[in-house]
């Protein structure tokens, strides 16, 4: 299986090339593109990115492993990111966590999602769900699963 950027992405890449002084700078945006396109970053995608940026695949792989938000494996279950920082802890994220553990989802602990005023918070597919209660979590997951 080989990886190909979609036509929209290819257009976007051409635009980005004009925006940055060097091709190295493309590596992060391209990793994001690959991740949104496939849901994860495959080795083929890394090879493709290394062709475009003219960096060795190892360099791209290093960047991809450095950031936890880049996924190098396909997600089997729905990925739920739960905030583990202080504000959410104080507002009862532990209860939410325990509740989530009984569900068929993959839980990932993340640092502050920047929504302390509406804690506890969890994030699914770039969307923040706020002011959580166990009941709310049930409703949200029912909609998504």
């Amino acid at each position, binding site marked *: 299986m080989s990886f190909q950027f979609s036509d929209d992405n290819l257009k976007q890449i051409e635009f980005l090339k004009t925006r940055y002084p060097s091709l190295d700078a493309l590596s992060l945006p391209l990793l994001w593109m690959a991740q949104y396109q496939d849901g994860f970053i495959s080795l083929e995608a890394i090879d493709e990115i290394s062709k475009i940026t003219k960096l*060795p695949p*190892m360099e791209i792989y290093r960047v991809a*492993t450095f950031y936890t938000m880049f996924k190098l494996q396909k997600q089997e279950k729905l990925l739920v990111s739960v905030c583990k920082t202080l504000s959410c802890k104080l507002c009862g994220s532990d209860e939410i966590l325990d509740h989530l553990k009984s569900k068929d989802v993959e839980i990932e602990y993340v640092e502050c999602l920047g929504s302390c005023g509406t804690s506890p918070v969890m994030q699914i597919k770039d969307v923040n769900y706020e002011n959580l209660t166990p009941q709310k979590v049930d409703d949200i997951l029912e909609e998504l699963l």
Partner: protein
Amino acid sequence: MSLVKVTVDNNTYEVEKDSLLIDLLIKENLRVPYFCYHEALGADGNCRMCMVEIEGQKRPQIACDTPVKDGMVVYSQGKKLPIKKIRRDILELELINHPVDCPICDQAGECSLQEYYMEYGLHDSHMYGLDKVTHHKHIDLGSNVMLDQERCVLCARCTRFTANITHTHELGIVGRGDEAHITTMPGRKLDNPYAMNVVDLCPVGALTSKDFRFAQRVWFLESSESVCTHCAKNCNIYIDHNKLKYQDENIYRFRPRKNLEVNGFFICNEGRLSYKNLLNNRMIKSTHVNEKDILKNSIEKAKAIAVLVDASLFNEEIEMIKEFSEKIGAKLYCPQDTYIDEEFEDDMLRSKYKIANIKTIQNLNILDEMPKDADLVINFNHPDITKIDSKEIISFQTHKFELETILTIPIATYVENSGSFTNIDGITQHLKKAITLNEPIPTIAQWFKRLEL
């Protein structure tokens, strides 16, 4: 090139402007510990072990990334600053997740971590009751290199080697924080002709040679300086050998030796592993006892004599054989095709001539062809002797091979002898004898004396 004056520990030295301070410290043998700096790879400044005090600077500075300036005053062991304590504390951080498995580690005895711990560390661990971060152990990276990620101190020497020297980029540090470890891309191998140099570069036991693993403790080995004769480049090496009780000398490994004129710091994998066939399958005794008479009679009887000389012999020996062949009126041959391997050549250290001394053969204009119509061929270790259909063959050989001869005489290999080689770039290097066997096999010079040739 302008020289500047630098004062280190109250001694003044003159060094090149803008050279690195650590080079001076290493050259003058002023004790400064370091993991990540290497002359061939340049400064990286990631291990922070080489901190020194520089007058006028508030904080300790790393010597490896500090270019010298005129009038710089350096205290390598500290004057106002507690340099020794700083080194100790950094070392402690390096050792937090180290498995401390020296008893089963191949690097023990030549390990920077051990040396610096004995010199600066000697501390008790502060990590009571905390588990160490575990990584994978004994990963086969390919190219005879084994990786133990737990022993790694992330000095990045190996990754810089694959990035800047071989430009193959197989190795990299992936992950972040204490998850960081050295690895290759998933499913890909370390695969380049110089890969095994990362084993020597690794200051700790993270990268070890599959070929040398568990073979011998390094403090039992004796290192002799020599050159590698796998090709005509003659890279400088150390031959690490040892003689076990009741046994004969055995070579355990070749290690590259620094020589900026010839090979720099590295050798290729094939050359490094070429020690294996050196001492095995040797000719020990002549096939007949009365060598002198057989030789004399054969030479007297023969109408046309051809002498074959091998390019693996020393300059001195080749000249001696040349004189000898002129004396008996024989033609001297050395077919060169058998040595050439175009595939092997590259632009780094490998020459297409896979024999040590081809340059001398070419310089002496020895015939590059197979002898024809000779009724006696006297061979000095040339491999093509097996292709010759001559009535009578007298062969001087280092190793055994299938051959019909009237007389075969054993000779010493280059490691059991001293002499000089001229490499493909015309650099002549004199070699000392590296190895003495229990029952030494005579050299060509000794045979010539004995046989009165």
